[in-house]
């Protein structure tokens, strides 16, 4: 199996001088292709910071974050944006759908960014929405007219639009009732299994955590425990193959 994400002794601090606060401390973590990793821990333990670092939304104070074999600290803003567009998908706790766009538009705008427009974009959007179980009657509605579960499905379709290798989910069930939450978790698992897509999910819900192949527990910015099936390649070699991110400039 190939390596998708690698964090090497990553520390993330905020503030300066006496007001400095450490969110992550010397964290090392690897995620293989097709692996579903649940990051768990109490509020403020650094889960979301870890996810932001993997997405290149923030840079570590020390250590390295490699995604698709590339060190994010060495990438320009444009390259990071391209990485997020083509290699990553992101699902947020509060969905973060664009409230003024319709369901269809919320999915298709990312297709537009990779040059898929017109009829092709419409067909692919329809397939994505059908794939995540959003009924066609909802496609022309605005997010505020949908239930939380439906909104999160739309967010999932949006994340999948560019066929990413890695899906990052930040508390995807945090704003949902248990039934909707389960449906979203099933959806994530299905994407992981059917598309062999790596998933890194941050959650503080123990039940949600069980969906991962592996559970990483964080406390006070440190990994305190890892449980579940470890990817063989991670155990086997530090030189594990990577699923490369093909930069647009390549």
């Amino acid at each position, binding site marked *: 199996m190939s390596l998708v994400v690698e964090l090497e002794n990553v520390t993330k601090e905020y503030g300066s001088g006496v007001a400095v606060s450490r969110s992550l401390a010397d964290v090392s973590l690897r995620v293989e292709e097709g692996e579903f990793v649940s990051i768990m821990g109490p509020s403020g333990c650094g889960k979301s910071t870890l996810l932001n670092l993997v997405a290149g939304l923030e840079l570590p104070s020390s250590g390295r974050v490699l995604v698709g074999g590339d060190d994010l600290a060495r990438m320009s803003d444009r390259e990071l944006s391209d990485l997020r*567009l083509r290699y990553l998908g*992101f699902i947020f706790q509060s969905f973060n759908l664009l*409230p*003024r766009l319709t369901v269809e538009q919320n999915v298709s705008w990312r297709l537009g960014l990779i040059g898929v427009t017109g009829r092709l974009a419409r067909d692919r959007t329809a397939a994505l929405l059908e794939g995540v179980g959003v009924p066609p009657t909802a496609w022309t509605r*605005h997010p505020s007219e949908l239930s939380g579960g439906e909104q999160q499905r739309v967010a999932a379709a949006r994340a999948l639009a560019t066929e990413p290798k890695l899906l990052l989910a930040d508390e995807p069930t945090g704003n949902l009732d248990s039934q909707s939450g389960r449906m979203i978790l099933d959806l994530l698992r299905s994407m992981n299994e059917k598309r062999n897509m790596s998933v890194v999910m941050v959650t503080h819900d123990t039940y949600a955590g069980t969906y991962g192949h592996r559970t990483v527990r964080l406390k006070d910015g440190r990994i305190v425990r890892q449980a579940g099936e470890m990817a063989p390649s991670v155990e086997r070699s530090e030189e594990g193959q990577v699923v490369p991110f093909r930069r647009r400039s390549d």
Partner: protein
Amino acid sequence: MNRLLLAWSQIRPQLGQLLIAVATIALGVALAAAILLANASLVRSFEESIDVLAGRAELQVTALAGGPLEEGLVERVRTVAGVGEAAALLLGTAYLEGREQVSVRVIGVDMLDESAVRLYQAGAQVAAMEDPLIFLNRPDSVLFTRALASQRGLEVGDTLGVELPIGREVWTLRGIIDDDAVSRAFGGRLVVMDLFSAQSALGVPGAATQIDVKVLPDHDVTEVGSRLRESLPEHVAVELLADRRAQLAGSLTAFQLVIDLIGAMALLLAVLVTANRLSTVYQERLWEMGVMRALGISRFKLVRDLLAEAFLVSLLAVGIGLPLGFLFAQILVAPVADTMSLNFKEAIATTWVAPRPLPLLVAGLAGVLSALLAALSPAVQAVRRSVVSVLAKGRRRDPQPDSPAKRYVRLGLPILALAVWLLRPFLPQGALAAVAMFLIAAAGALLLTPILRGVAGPIGWLFGISAQIGVEDQSRTPSRALGAAAVLMAGVAIPIWMVGVTESFQEYVVDAVMKIRRGDLVVESQFELGATGAGRPSVSGEVVDIIARTPGVDAVGAAVIAKSMSPKMGILALDPVRLRRAEFGDWALEPGALPGALERVAAGEAILVDTNLQATYDLEVGGPFRVLTPSGAAELLVAGVIRTVPIIPSGDVILSREVYRRLWRDETITRAFVLVGAGHAIHDVRGRIADRLGDRYRLDVKSVDDLSEWFSAAVWAAFSFVRVLVLLTLVVVLVGCGDALAANVLERTRELGSMRALGMSRRQIRVMVLAQALAIGLAGSGLAILVGLAMAVAFTEGFTPAVLGWELEFRPSLGIAFLGAALGTLSCVLGALVPAERAARLSPAVALRYE
């Protein structure tokens, strides 16, 4: 007081954010204060000049036809029962030579007449005077106001060159008048001479302009006035000074209304910009307001507290705006004086504007009200949000479907505006024009949403997908975009409206004026009447003969421009050749003129009247028109009607100069038009005429094109305040659009964060915000063209007849409209540069945490 202290503690940390609100309200207040102060100051100056000229008089005797009276009438006036003091006064204009040529009002007073001394001297103390006997014995003696003497750097005993109707002369300064009121009247540009000397200097021996009368203490002024009317000749008018002031106030009302309307528009812009800013500030405090409401504070109390904050903001703005307005007024007074001079055909002094309490109070109150008005809607909207929703979602706003009432308004208002627009010809003007203008502006604002949606596609096609997303997104809940577009629409529509009216005025006036003023050359005084140069002083009629005798001159046609008060009319008296030869003008008469009308006028048998005069006095072609002249009553046959720009609003009579000379006893001319003979170069003839007129007459010899340009320039000068306002408006558009877009970025911080997290680059975010600005710019400016032009038409039809006295034909200048729209769009995009950069530089991680 406690509430205000609480409000202050709330706004103190947000002062930085409120800076734009404070600045725009301050600018609006400054502009309003400047307009009101300049206006009040000029009106006061107008009134003071009347008071100074009238002294302590209660009645004034003048020639009904305008022009001079016989000085000897003063003796007849004194014989009327109840008359205490009566003195003759002669008024005229002279032009001081020097580095800067200045026109001055010349007042001739009989210094040997005790009545005159009692009437006028009480208000005009002569501080420094050489020997009074020398003053009286030497015809070159003059008294200057202290202000004029110091302006020209003159002291008693100094001499200076002066241009008078009789030609060039030299005056000697024999004394200084030290009186504030006199110095202020005519901006201090006042010269006093002995009556006899003034009569010779002005070329009107034995004449007076007015006889001022003071009634005996125990007599009724009105009764004495009636007795005077009965005992004086028919061509003489007797007026109560109080009536004259009231008449003046009435004639200024319409003009002031227009000026005030412009001030109100400036404040409206300030309201729009401030409403946007306050809406942002309140948006940021939504969560805090939600908590307060959850803790038991009612909506009403919250709105009241927010209004208290707006009140404090307004006080700050007024505190800055009023002193600024006072400074602006010093700059604005000159162009407003020019405009008033043009409107009232009087030289109105440009003086230092004093800080009068009433205009400042009105501007200050308008500023406070504007801030409260701007705060009301955002405050109500902020507290209307459900507490649960606010606490759950923070600042985020989801689009809400329109309520049925909103939909009806959205549909109904444009239809209503269109209906009022179409029904204009059948409805009363004036107030309706204001209603129509308001409806047009409101309908324009409502049309912004569909237009924003309409431009999304083309912008996306032109600038890429991120631009399209931005514009699409914005068009769904366009509250911010609407705010910016409304500022832009108002900001661009106002210049289009004002410049459109000015241009129409200019084109119409110049076309109409020049149609009947043609030839190869024009000869006229080098001096200009009034601050605008709206007219030229009279010159001696002798110059016509001198020009006619110049080699190369084929024909000379002189004209006199004058005014008559009985009936009230302008007079255009022309040499017959001006009517007989087509090279001098196109005399297209209205249908129904008498056969050979122009020839009959040229021969002195009949007159032409303009459409205004025909309407004012209900004149019929072929019928008589009775006028009172210095030579007595005369009945003139109306041979035809012509459409032109009248000299005064009530209209003009056009007659032969021979008839005018005979009836009005005036030998002067205003200008002479020259046709150059075949085979002669215009340039050469121009030089020859200038040589022949020599140094004796300070005249310009110019081409007719120069005259046309001079008319254009005079109109532009008269409307020069429009340019100041246009510039200020565009600055407000820049600030207002930038602010609204900055608010938009702030409000959508989280969305921008998620877009960045989902792969949008900084460049794409930047393009997105700039595309939004471009869409707003195009939508706002596009509508501004329609709204501005429609407002200009409504204004022209509704207000210009009241202001000018004649109907102005509106000529839409699409070039100006598109230029205004382009500048507005550019301002909007420039204003978006900072918000776009801020949006691009947002840290996605921070933005995603933003609530």
